[in-house]
Structure formats: C-alpha cells, structure tokens
C-alpha cells in the first residue's frame, strides 16, 4: 500500500490514515463471511445459536468501521483546517496512457461525515435487524446484502475519483435492488426491485455522461494540470482547478457538467421526476427502508452535489435548477404523504420531501446546511422507520394506518421514541430537525444566488407546515385515538404468498432423475419447510412490545434526535442572536470541504436581528400550526370520511396521477411499441421480406438449386470442398514439380 499524499505537504500525515482501508474492507470481509459460511453455520449450530453468531458477525464489521471513523475524524479535526485532506491510494484500477484511475480514498470532513453516518446509524440498524429478521427463512442472505451495502456506501463516500464513486453508486443500487426484492416469492416485490434499479439507471446515464464530459474537458487541458498527471477524474486533481480549466469554456459546457451530475443525483436521491422508485422500494424489509431508503443511500445524491459543489457554483443556472427541483419535490411529496394509508409509504414520501429540502439547501449555496440536514435526517428518519418496523411487527405485519389506533398502550417504548422522531421532523426545538431545517430556510431567504429567493423560502415554509401535518396524522392514527380499529374492522384478508401446491407429473424424467430432480419425499420436505406461518391481523390480536435488540437502537436514535441537532449546531442561531459565541460544530468541521455557510456571507442577516427572529418564529410557527391543526382532526381516531380516501386526498395519494401516467406512457405503451416493432420490423421486414424473401427468390430462379435451401448449403459446402481440393492439388503440383 502506498502512500499518503496531501496537498499541503508541510504536515506529514499520520500513517493512521491507512486504516481507512480497513473501514472499507471490514464489511467486505463480513459480506464474504455471510455469503460463504452463513448457511453452513446455521446448519451446524442450529437456528438459534447460528443466528446469534451470524448476527454478531454482521454487526461487528460495521461497528468496527464506526470506531475507526471516529478515530480518523478526531485525527483530522486535530489538523489545521486547511490541510484536512488526506488521500491514500492502493493499486491502479484503470491504467491507460490516457487515463489513470487508482483505488484511492479521500479523507476529508465531508467523506468522514458520511462515514460516520453510514457506520454509526448503520450499526444501530444492523443491531435492530438481527431482531427484526430473527424469524425470517433466509437470515444470512439478508446480512450478506446488508454488509455489502455498507461496503459500497463507504466506497461511494470515500472514493477519491468519480469512477470509484460510481462503483459505490451503482453498487448501493444493486444492494437496494437485492433487498427490495428480498422476499422474492411475491412477484410484486421483484417488480418493485426492478423499478428501483432501472429508474436509477436513467439517472446513472446522466451521471456517466457527466463523467465523460469532465474527462474530455480535463484531458484537453493537460497544460493546466500538473506535469504527467493522468488522473483526469480524481477529485484532488479536478476540484481545485475547476475554475481555471472551465474558464476556457462557454456557459453551455459550464452548465451542462453540473446538470449531468445532478441528473445522477436526482435518480439516486429520488427527486422529481425520478422519485417514482422510492415509494415502491418500501417492499423491502423495514431495516432496509431505514438504512438504505432513508438514512444513507438516498442521501448520496446530496453528497455528490456537495462533493462537486465547485462545478455547481460556477453555473447559476445549475444552482437554480437544483434549488427549483428540490423545492418542488419537497412540496409535491409532502402533499402526496397526506393521501397514504400505509405507514411506510407516509415515511417514504416524507423522505422524498426531506431530500428535496437538502437539494433546496444546495441550490441556494448552503451545501453545509444541506449536509447538516442529511445528518439530522439520518437520525430521526432512521428512528421513525425503525419505529414503524416495530409497529408493523407488533401488528402482525399489517401496515395499514386505518387498522391501527391507541397503540401507545401496548408498545410504549416504540411510542415514546417515535414521538421524539415526530417532533424532530416537524421542526420543534430543541429536537434535531429544527436546527437543520431552520438553517436551510434562513439560507434560502438570504441567498444571493437566485433572484427573489424568498419564493424558495416560502415553498420551504409551506412544506414545513405540511410535514408537521402529515406526520401528526400518521402518529395520531397509530398511537392515539380511543378506537383500536383492528378490533372492529372485519378480519383482514391476508394474502397468503405461499406457492400453490403442485401435483407433479411423475412421468418419465429420463435417466438422470436423481442427478437433476428431487424425489417426491424431498419435494414434500422442502415444501413443508417453506410453508410460512403468517397469522393475519385478527380482532383478538394483542400487540406486544418488541425485543430489546429492536428497542435499544430506537432509544439510541431517539437520544440522537433529541440532542444531536442542538449539539452539532452549538445552539446556533439562538446562541448567535443572544450574543453568546458557541461555535457551530458541524460547520466548523465541514466548511473546508463544502464552503462557508451562506449565512456568514449574507450581510442582511447581520443587519437585521428582527428579520432573523421573525424567520425563526415563522419556522416554529409552521410546525406548531401543522401539529395543532392535524392533531385536532386525528386525535380521536380515523375520521369516517377517511375510511377510503376521497377527492383531493385520494388524488394526492395517487401522486396526482404522475406515476400512473409514467407507467402508461413508458412501460405499457413502450412495451406495446417494442412488441409490434419486433413482429413487424425484425421478423416481418428484415427477416421476412429481405432475408427469406431473397432466399426464396434465389431459390425460384436458381436452376441448379431448385430443390430447397438445404440443398443450396450443401452445394456451397461442396463448392468450398472442391475449391480446397483444387488448391491442395495445386500445392502438390507446384511443390513436386
């Protein structure tokens, strides 16, 4: 392993930074362990002991990564703030005379922030999953994918060049695909998995083109690069020179580069118009939704934008697009959340909406605030998802809000922790969400990158109100109200996903029966084992609190949601307004990577303390208003009119018909077109008319080849043979002469 390099060579970096590779390798080892030995261990040790060992083995690499990340972060924080960048490289991946892409990791505040979130929240969710998946038929397969996900996510966060980030980028997409389709017996889950991968690929198309364009730009400006530098896609080469290199290009290229990268971010971070896959992704087990589809993977787009923020800052057009898409998505998804009846779908749209917030922050230049929201959102959204998982377990895997009610009585720990998450996302101080959300809103208000940024602020403000609203609806319907609605509702028709039973045809199966096919007894034994004993939700059901392995992570995340935001922000903006100087920890740590806060630069902010207080008041007001209005509506239980969502609510729930239109347009119509095209063009015109037609024509004309096409081939074979014979005889003739 070579070679730590740092752009500021006066500090010889600590060799401890080599250990970054261990952060990455630990989950890879965990993945290989689960994949290779998981089933065998379970067979050898029995289900209980085997799963205890496997669960332990799954958590350890992630937790070890967290400890290492903390260690490295402390070391890095101890360095001078302008030299907080260490690159450690290993062997070359792509090594051509025109391009060098080494395996190299970049350790700076931004990448370590991501590492801390991924491994920290990741290990809590791993612990939770050991409990959640305890009774699943395929325990080790789950953790195989789960550990692999962590590895790819860390590669995405730490990779020092775009192709490495792309490995992580598509790798996490693969794990997402595998985990959404984890319960593949149900074909609908498999379809949701496909949708996620394919929609993401559309974004990746843009991302890849962005990489190509960057390569082209930097490779054609070798004279501006260090002599002999072939790492045209490495961040430490391209980021510092962005302004200099792009100075020679017109606004088209300068805008297209960030916009293409943003297309990738839109796919991965589920923004309009590509958010479509995320709600369907809820088909995966709930720990997956918490880790991948809330806390980490979906924030990768925000990370990418923050990482390459220098390119965005060069083009006001791209900033406006990012802010606009983010604001629109935030508002749009928040409205859709009101129409959901599935607890996880509410959280899914909430995630889409919060991700919109993060892009809104990036678009107004507040990359630090965006990353801050990534962090707090990881706390409270993971908490809410894991809490919803506990509710789902307690309710026999029924996810319908309309069947819940008064659950606080049965599952108090879940209830109390989720209440903290609820207040955090709603933006009530001092819970975590308030600090980051307020920072985003204030940055939007004072941004000088777009004209009339107050419009963006207003959209964000309305979204904050709606967020408090739909979350209140969800919480009230779940935990409050006097009616325990599953008791009154008619027994829920439980979809039994177990396969139909076959009466196999025992007819002739040839000589290889035993090698290829199972015997009747074996088939029976397997089917017995496969039969899952799902009990539907019955009126007699008594919900019970979940196991400690599940509620302990809930409590930990609740603690983070309670104090995480206040601690990281150093109680700013309050401290600042009251004249107390507490450093904004998150900004102080992160600004070498993502630039200073917009608020520090906005002079208006300093001038008018009244506006600042007004903004804080407005953002708290939105939260209180949203909670108050909707608590009144739902505190007693489900209003009769919502037994089946009606009118506007229903339309919102169906995503204002967007998904349906897209499916009709691209999937259904596209499929029909492709089918018709195949039959008419490929089989009909090319093959039918040109190929077979001309063959028939030749056949009809040919006097010698009258019989059939087969005859003509034999003739050709004969012709070649005769030719060869002639040639050979000529050889013999000339050589013996």
């Amino acid at each position: 392993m070579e070679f730590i390099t740092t752009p500021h060579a006066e500090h010889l970096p600590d060799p401890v930074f080599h250990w970054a590779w261990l952060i990455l390798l630990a989950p890879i080892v965990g993945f290989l362990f689960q994949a290779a030995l998981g089933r065998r261990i379970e067979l050898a040790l029995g289900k209980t002991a085997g799963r205890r060992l496997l669960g332990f083995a799954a958590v350890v690499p992630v937790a070890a990564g967290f400890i290492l990340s903390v260690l490295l972060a402390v070391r890095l924080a101890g360095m001078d703030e302008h030299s907080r960048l260490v690159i450690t490289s290993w062997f070359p991946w792509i090594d051509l005379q025109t391009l060098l892409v080494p395996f190299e990791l970049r350790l700076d505040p931004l990448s370590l922030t991501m590492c801390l979130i991924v491994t920290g929240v990741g290990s809590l969710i791993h612990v939770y999953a050991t409990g959640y998946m305890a009774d699943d038929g395929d325990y080790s397969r789950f953790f195989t994918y789960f550990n692999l996900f962590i590895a790819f996510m860390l590669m995405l966060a730490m990779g020092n060049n775009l192709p490495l980030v792309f490995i992580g980028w598509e790798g996490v997409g693969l794990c997402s695909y595998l985990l959404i389709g984890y319960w593949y017996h149900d074909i609908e889950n498999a379809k949701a998995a496909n949708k996620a991968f394919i929609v993401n690929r559309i974004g990746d198309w843009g991302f890849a083109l962005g990489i190509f364009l960057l390569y082209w730009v930097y490779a054609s400006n070798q004279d501006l690069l260090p002599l002999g530098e072939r790492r045209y896609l490495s961040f430490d080469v391209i980021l510092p020179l962005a302004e200099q290199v792009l100075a020679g290009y017109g606004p088209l290229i300068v805008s297209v580069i960030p916009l293409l990268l943003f297309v990738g971010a839109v796919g991965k971070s589920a923004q309009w118009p590509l958010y479509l896959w995320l709600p369907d992704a809820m088909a995966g087990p709930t720990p997956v939704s918490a880790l991948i589809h809330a806390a980490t993977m979906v924030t990768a787009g925000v990370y990418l934008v923050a990482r390459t923020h220098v390119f965005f800052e060069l083009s006001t057009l791209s900033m406006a697009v990012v802010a606009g898409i983010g604001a629109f998505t935030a508002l749009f998804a928040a409205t859709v959340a009101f129409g959901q009846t599935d607890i996880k779908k509410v959280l899914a749209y909430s995630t889409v909406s919060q991700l919109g917030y993060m892009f809104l922050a990036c678009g107004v230049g507040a990359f630090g605030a965006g990353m801050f929201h990534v962090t707090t959102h990881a706390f409270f959204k993971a908490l809410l998802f894991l809490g919803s998982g506990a509710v789902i377990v307690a309710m026999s895997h029924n996810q319908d809000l309309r069947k819940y009610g008064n659950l606080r009585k049965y599952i108090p720990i879940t209830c109390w922790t989720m209440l903290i998450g609820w207040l955090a996302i709603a933006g009530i101080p001092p819970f975590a969400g308030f600090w980051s959300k307020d920072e985003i809103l204030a940055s939007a208000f004072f941004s000088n990158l777009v004209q009339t940024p107050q419009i963006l602020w207003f959209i964000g403000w309305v979204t904050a109100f709606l967020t408090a609203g739909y979350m209140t609806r969800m919480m009230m319907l779940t935990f409050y109200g006097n009616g325990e609605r599953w008791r009154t509702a008619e027994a829920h028709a439980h979809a039994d996903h177990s396969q139909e039973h076959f009466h196999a045809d025992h007819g002739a199966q040839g000589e290889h029966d035993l090698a290829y096919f199972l015997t009747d007894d074996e088939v029976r034994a397997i089917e017995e084992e496969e039969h899952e004993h799902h009990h539907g939700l019955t009126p007699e059901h008594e919900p019970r609190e979940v196991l400690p392995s599940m509620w302990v992570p809930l409590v930990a995340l609740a603690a983070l949601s309670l104090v995480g935001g206040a601690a990281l922000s150093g109680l700013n903006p309050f401290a600042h307004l009251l004249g107390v100087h507490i450093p904004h920890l998150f900004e102080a740590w992160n600004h070498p990577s993502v630039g200073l806060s917009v608020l520090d630069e906005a002079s208006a902010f300093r001038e008018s303390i009244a506006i600042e207080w007004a903004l804080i008041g407005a953002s708290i007001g939105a939260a209180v208003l949203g909670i108050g209005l909707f608590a009144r509506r739902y505190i007693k239980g489900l209003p009769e009119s919502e037994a089946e969502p009606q009118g506007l609510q229903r339309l919102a729930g169906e995503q204002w018909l967007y998904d349906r239109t897209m499916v009709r347009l691209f999937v259904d119509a596209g499929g029909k077109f492709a089918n018709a095209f195949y039959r008419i063009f490929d089989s009909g015109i090319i093959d039918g008319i040109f190929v077979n037609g001309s063959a028939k024509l030749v056949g009809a004309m040919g006097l010698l080849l009258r019989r059939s096409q087969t005859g003509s081939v034999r003739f050709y074979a004969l012709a070649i043979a005769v030719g060869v014979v002639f040639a050979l005889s000529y050889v013999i003739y000339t050589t013996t002469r």
Partner: protein
Amino acid sequence: MEVQGFGVLSLLVFLPVAGALAASFVPRNLLGFHRWWALLISAFTLFASLQLYVGFSGNTFHFQWREGMDWLPALGIRYQLGVDGISLWLILLTSLISFLGIWFSFHVRERVKEFMIWLLILEGAMIGVFCALDLVLFYIFFEATLIPMYFLISIWGGKNRVYSSVKFFLFTFLGSIFMLVAIVALYFISKAATGEGTFDLIALQALAADGRLATGPIEMWLFAAFALAFAVKVPLFPVHTWLPDAHTEAPTAGSMILAAIMLKMGTYGFLRFAFPLFPDAAVQAAPFLMGLSVVGIIYGAIMAAVQEDWKRLVAYSSVSHLGFVMLGIFSLNHNGLTGGTLQAINHGISTGALFLLVGMVYERTHTRLFQDYGGLKRRMPMFATLFLLIMLSSVGLPSTNGFIGEFLAMLGAFQAGANANSAIPLWMPVLAGAGVVLAAVYLLWMFQKVFYGPIRNPVVNRLRDIRPWEQAVAWVFVVFVFWLGLYPKFFTDKMQTSLNAVRHQTLQPPGARPAWADVRTIDINANGDVVVVQRDDLNDLGRWTEVAVRTPSGHQPQRLAMRGGEE
C-alpha cells in the same frame, strides 16, 4: 525473429485438428474416450496457449511468435502466423472457451464422436483466424469455421435447426464472398505497385502505410467488401437476423463459441485488416458504421426486451453488446480502442457464461420459454447466485468486466464526438447510454421471470440445484468477470502498444503510418507516440532503445519523411 517452418502457433492450430483426426479412427461407441480425449486435447491447447502470454512483450507492436514459410510462391501465398496484443487475448479466449465448452458438452449423448470432432476442428480453425497473417490463409480459416458450426447447429440443434443453420451459413458465406474478391483485387494492386503480387498482410500494410495500396473510390470499395464480411459476423444492424436463430438453436457449446468467439472474428477483422489496409476509407466510414452500432445497441436491447424465449433474449443482447465494441473501436482513440477490445473479451466471458447457464437448465427442463419458469431461485439457489453474478457483468455493473469495457468504449466515443472538428456526432455516444439503461431493463426482467415469483411449473418444483462440476465451470467465468473488472491492467498492459499501432496506422497521413514491416526503425512508446527505435538484439523483442520521438504526445503528428531502412 521469424521461425522458418512450424512453431507454437502452428501447434495451437493443428493440435486440435490432429486430435480430431486421431479420434476419427476410434469407434464411435467409446463415448468416454471421445469425451476425455477432446477434453485432454483442448486442455493441452489451453496450456500451450498460456505460453503465448508468458513470452509476450507488450513493448512492441510488431507481431510476435512469428512463423512462416512459402506456401504457394507462384501466387504469392505464404503460410504465415503471428500474434500481437489484440490477437493474443482472442487466442487465449478461444482456447479457454473451447476447453470449457468441451467440458460442458459431456452431457451430450447423441453422436458424441462427431460432436467432439467438430468442436476440435472448430477450435483449430478459430485459432487460425486469429493468427493468420496472410489474407488467403485468413480467408481459409475464416470460412473453415463455418463448416463445423454448420454441422453443430444442424445436427445437434433445437427444433428449428435446419432453417437456422442454413441462414447462418448463407449470411456469413455471402458476406465473405465479397471479401474474397477484394483479397484477389489486393493481389493485383500490390502486383501493380511493386511488380510482385502478394497476399502477405505485412507487405500489403507496408504499401498502405505509404499510401501506395489503394486510394480513393477503389479503397472505399475494397473496404466495403471487407466491412461487409465482418459486419455480418459482428453482427451489425441490419445484417444481424441470422444471429438470434443460430444462437438459439445451436447446442450449448455451439452457442457459447458462437457468441464468445465467432462474433469477435468480425471486430477483430476490422482491427487487423480493414483499418490498417484501408485507413482513409475506415476513417471516412467511421461515422456511418458507428451510427449503425448505436442503432444496433438500442435496437438489440429493445428486441431482447420483448423475447419470450430465454436463450433468444441472450442472443439479442449480443447484438446490443457488440454495438459497444464497434462504437469503441471506431472512435479511433486510445480509450475507445481499449474499451472496444476489452469489451470484445468481456462479451465472450459474460455471454458465453450466460449461454452456458441457460444450457444447464435447458438440459433439465427442455424448455426455453419464460412462461415455464418462475421461482427457480427457490430450488436452485446456487445456480441463481451464479446467474446473478454473470448477469450483473452483462448489465455492466461497475467492478465487473462489463463496466470497464462499456465505460472506456463510451468514453472514447464521447471524446471522438465532443471534439469540434470530428465527423462523429455527439448524439451517438449519448444515445448509446440508453443501451445501458435498456440492458438493465431486459436483463432484470429476464431474471425476474425466471427466478422470482411463485413456482408455476411442476418440473421446476422438482429441480435439484446444479452439481459441483457444473458449478466449477461457471465459477471459472465468475473469476474472469471480477479479474477483468477489478484489475483490467493485467489485460490492457499487453494490449496498448498494438492498439496504438492500429490507431496510428489508421489516422496518420501516408508516410507517417507505422508499418509492421519496419522492424528496425519505427515503433510506438508507452505514451503512444510514434518513435524511432533501435533494437539491441534481434531476438529479444523486449529490449528497445528509443532514438527519437517523432510525434510528441498531445500534438498533431508530423509527417515522417523517411521510413524503411533508416537507422
């Protein structure tokens, strides 16, 4: 430097043929003998081909392991063989895939003797294609591959085998007849130029390097004749329709070899013959052929998406994937050429493996229709895992081989398109990206239809997972998927100089094109510059001393005034 008579390459070509000849004298009822004999011969060929790698130097673009002798001196036909950094990997791929194909063909129970004999003959002919340095010899090998493949399809194929084999034969044969005409024409052109006609590729290319071979419309026509033969093989849209039929109906080993190797004869032909002999025509035709490639990428993907037959879907995916190979090599820059050449190998690994895996299940169920599958992962988890890994390489997931090839090929095409003075429009590489999205569509749908959902078919319900020896064959492919995906440097290092040669032979003006005949003077250094070099030792191909750089990197190459005997 040149072995007079026979050397390693002749061994590689004729060992399988001799093995086939020997087997023909053994009674047909000794099934075990025929199987193990073929496996032994192909294993030995594989082993011997590794020697090519070990002794190969990546520092020169000249042909290595050369051997030759006069064959028909009166006609200027030589028996001449050699490899460079492009053909090296294709020969290794051929011997590997042939070995694995023969191994997997142990399950064949009908007419085992003939089956193995045809496979061995095919292997010899294919290796011959990749090392022949005389146009007539090349043509003979090129055509000779058709005969064994024709019989493999028409005897051991599926229900529609007669139609498919005839179609396969006619398509490729008609395509290459024009090439034969062009080859003869080259003889007369060289005769007019030097007084002595020749079919020797090296001699002909030396003429082309000076602009004395063929120019203007004649060059265009000759290029078109070669291009047609190769385009049918690749296959390029719209001459692709033989492929789905032939691939689908062929027995498993036949499909593997067709996809993995025989399609590469087309792309190889462009690199080895069409570019160096007709450089100006190739540059002129590049936008057109790249356009066809892009159409093929999208078209093949859409066609694949609507197939109801598992094997046919994989077959159509080849049309799409080969488009990336063509896109890469026709972009005629280093990234593109490397990407295209890598992608040719990658496709051999991935699609060869897909046909193998489909064949394993077909062998059990005797159906290829998706409607007969579903839920296969429940009964065959190990098979599903292996299939997933191979499928991901076909999807082009980063860290697998598929990504490296497609990424570099598209990067090269993008570079070519983005340059302001380029004739290649930028929409081509941009649109080719849609092929990557569509690849996810059809491959994931395929995976879903076969492996996910409930089990619908009683036969599937009774299936056992694949046996250890079948797993072993598949794991070999998986190893290559990640080897190529994570450390492509191993492969590209010995490829770069030869690809630079092709690039300069095609793009430089006459007189500045490096010629294979110029053993003493002109070579290409690690930066891709044409340089004048001096060799210390005629027998040591690895040791060169650079004397002067003629084209500084990053600048337009200067015309080389002198070539040939210059010291």
